[in-house]
């Protein structure tokens, strides 16, 4: 073992120790704690990006330099994508109001709902100012973390799905990159041509709610949905009102309406959000986390194959990387898409143990399968590649999930770095073994 290798080994040990230690620390923090700190953690895919996180990045492996970055990111904060989610509780409230069943609190709630509806009207699914800001910050940190990659003249190839909020997210990031380094060679595109991997929705796997899954999900959520306390503070006669207000739906969507506001310019108004107790928010998180697990995770009951919906994206990331290695300075490839791709991709890769397989929703929390940590608005996965020079055959890389170093289920002697060869070998075999 030469000196370099020894150093690398020692560093690997240190990193392993540190990451293990941090895992212990983060495990001490429960989902309930996280929701208490930041209520919108309970809204899963409407969780806002943890923009304030400052993370220490492990120095580059000895003698190697970062030379290429490959990324898939979700668009930034947006308005709710369709009006139906808001219409449900809003209509119920209006009905209750018209028969004079609202308490003073109830009337205030209805007023808040009106404001939110007016603010959201004709903006369904659109990127918000907060969303643009998230992408500016992510882009800025990308350059700050890896100046070697984003050097003068570096190629930055950005592509987006054909959805406006993604194009605009890409735009916000690229505007910021140019502001910091006008000498970058940036190209942008958004085309139907890349949709087969940028936003692939597998028609077969879309049928994730099998009869068995539905049965298990209903059983799991049956005790979690209602909220008698809420009904009592909003309606004069909660029992009578049940004829026109479905308690389960009402509770669920009113809570969402409150939490989603954190993504908009009306984020300071937390009136609706404050109506709910942490335990109630936590119950909603449980309901949604289980649903996302059925849809994107390796849920044994519906076959455990959901993560494979992103096999094309993974193949493309591998192919892009391989072809980029042949260039002296490949720069960066940035892809802007959706959480419905990012979460299954993370599960397919098994980042931070998200390939966890189970048939019991009760196991999810204990085993760290917390979707809100993976795909908040603006969430992203970055593969950062390192090598000595273009002749270096042993390319190393690390994975950042939301800009924090993450682990993969493959062996390595230099964590958080992995050997690209091992990665390719493991994952290509894994996808090849998948039978459609």
């Amino acid at each position: 073992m030469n000196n370099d290798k020894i150093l690398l080994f020692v560093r690997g040990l240190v990193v392993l120790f540190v990451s293990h230690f941090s895992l212990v620390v983060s495990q001490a923090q429960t989902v309930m704690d996280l929701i208490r700190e930041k209520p919108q953690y309970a809204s899963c895919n409407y969780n806002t990006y943890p923009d304030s996180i400052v993370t220490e990045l492990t120095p580059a492996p000895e003698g190697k330099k970062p030379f290429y970055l490959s990324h898939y990111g979700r668009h930034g904060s947006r308005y709710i994508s369709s009006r139906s989610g808001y219409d449900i509780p809003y209509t119920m409230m209006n009905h209750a109001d018209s028969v004079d069943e609202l308490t003073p609190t109830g009337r205030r709630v209805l007023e808040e709902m009106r404001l939110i509806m007016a603010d959201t009207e004709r903006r369904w699914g659109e990127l918000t100012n907060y969303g643009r800001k998230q992408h500016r910050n992510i882009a800025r940190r990308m350059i700050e973390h890896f100046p070697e990659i984003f050097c003068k003249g570096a190629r930055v190839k950005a592509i987006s799905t054909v959805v406006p909020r993604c194009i605009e997210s890409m735009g916000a990031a690229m505007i910021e990159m140019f502001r910091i380094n006008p000498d970058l060679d940036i190209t942008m595109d958004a085309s139907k041509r890349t949709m087969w991997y940028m936003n692939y929705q597998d028609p077969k796997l879309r049928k994730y709610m099998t009869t068995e899954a539905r049965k298990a999900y209903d059983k799991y959520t049956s005790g979690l949905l209602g909220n008698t306390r809420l009904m009592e503070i909003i309606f004069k006669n909660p029992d009578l009102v049940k004829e026109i207000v479905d308690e389960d739906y009402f509770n669920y969507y009113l809570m969402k309406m409150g939490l989603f506001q954190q993504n908009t310019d009306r984020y300071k108004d937390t009136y609706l959000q404050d109506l709910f107790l942490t335990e109630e928010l936590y119950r909603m998180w449980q309901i949604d986390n289980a649903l996302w697990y059925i849809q994107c995770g390796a849920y044994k009951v519906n076959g455990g194959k959901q993560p494979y919906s992103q096999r094309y994206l993974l193949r493309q990331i591998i192919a892009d990387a391989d072809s980029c290695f042949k260039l002296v300075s490949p720069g960066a490839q940035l892809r802007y898409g959706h959480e419905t791709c990012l979460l299954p991709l993370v599960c397919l890769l098994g980042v931070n143990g998200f390939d966890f397989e189970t048939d019991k929703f009760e196991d999810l929390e204990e085993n760290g399968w917390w979707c809100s940590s993976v795909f908040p608005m603006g969430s992203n996965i970055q593969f950062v590649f390192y090598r000595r020079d273009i002749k270096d055959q042993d390319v190393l890389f690390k994975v950042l999930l939301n800009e924090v170093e993450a682990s993969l289920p493959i062996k390595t002697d230099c964590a958080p770095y992995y050997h690209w060869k091992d990665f390719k070998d493991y994952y290509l075999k894994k996808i090849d073994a998948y039978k459609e």
Partner: protein
Amino acid sequence: MNRKIFIVLSAIILAGLGVKAQNVVKELKADVNRSAGTYYSLPAIKTEHDTPAPAGMKPFYINHYACPSSYYLEKGEYYNDPLAVFMKADSLGKLTKLGKDVLRQLVIVHDDAHNRTGELTIKGMAQSRGAMKLMVERFPEAFTKNGYYSARSVVQNRSILTMVESAAQLSKMFGPQTVGTRVSHGEQSFMNPQDKDLTDDRNDTLTMERYKRFAALNTDEIRLMESLFNDQNYVTINVDPYILSQQLFRLAGSIQHTELAGRITLYDLFTPEEIHRHWRKNNAWNYINYGAFKLNGARQPFLQRGVLRNMIHMGDSMLKRNNPVAHIRYTNERVIMGLACLMELNNCGLETENLDSLEHHGWADYKIAPLGGSIVMIHYRKHKDDPNILVKVLLNGREARLPMKTDCAPYYRWNDVKRYYLRKLYRYESERFNETNKTTRSNE
């Protein structure tokens, strides 16, 4: 004073020369791509000169409305349908040698556009940046680090991409602190207004009859069909020459936007006269739909009244800003064309019912709203409290003539501009109001 007279005189002379030089035939000959009309790709090259602003006046606000840059044709059928006609004819041995050659080219054009219909082309991306670069270089005082730059787009991907490319270019050139973008359905009223009552009047029976007659007089596809197909009986039974010719002409115009430009062309299928005739038909159609065509009421440009009103409103709102501001908006060709007509820029305000006379009056679609084209209003002042604001308007980069009087063309007094346009809008709105009232009353 002498200088003023000189400027006015030279402007009049130039304008006069312009009218004479407006020879569409010559312009189409110089660049056949112009015949694509609103689908002509405006080159982002530095050709325009700027009349110096009156002493001491500096640009402080730019109000900019633009078409998207070059894009692939909107619909897949534009590529598929003519190809299908040629493939079928080929399978039956009905194509001439030229016809076979065209088939080969159609396949290339079709494949190039596959899965990209309606999307910005690579050329379009460069064009977006190029146009912004030209503008920043042309008005450096209006583009400063402490300025405020807000870009907006209608909810259509090619416009959104044009917007982000332009905004990125701004950022690249001088890195201002604020370069915002915004895409929202909530801004339709001043980005792409809708008014069904008004647009329902566009193609009434009289108008359609007039157009059909005009089109018939400008149609003769026999030569083209004979050059492409070896069996005219087959053509009679299986091909609609009018439609096929239109489809081929549309595709011919689309090639300029792609990387195929310069490598293949479909324009050589047509004689210069045929090209001119095709253009005349499309130009007349654009005039009917977006210009002040008398037969359908000469009101279609008023569809853009919300845009013009916003332009005036924003102009007034920016008067006291300390630092430069630019509102950069990307909409579609139809909005720009209607707005140019509503603002009566150059000859765009033309009111006539004679479709034959359009080109004599210089009403040519490729000069009004080509891809990459824009209407830019630039506001000038001496200092922050200067009450005498001047504006000039660029139509596709060129200083444009406005319909009100001025003693310092191409600069106009903001107050005159405002008064003229607001009166025009009020007049129209009052007419509409009276009509609606009458209808309501008669219904009662």
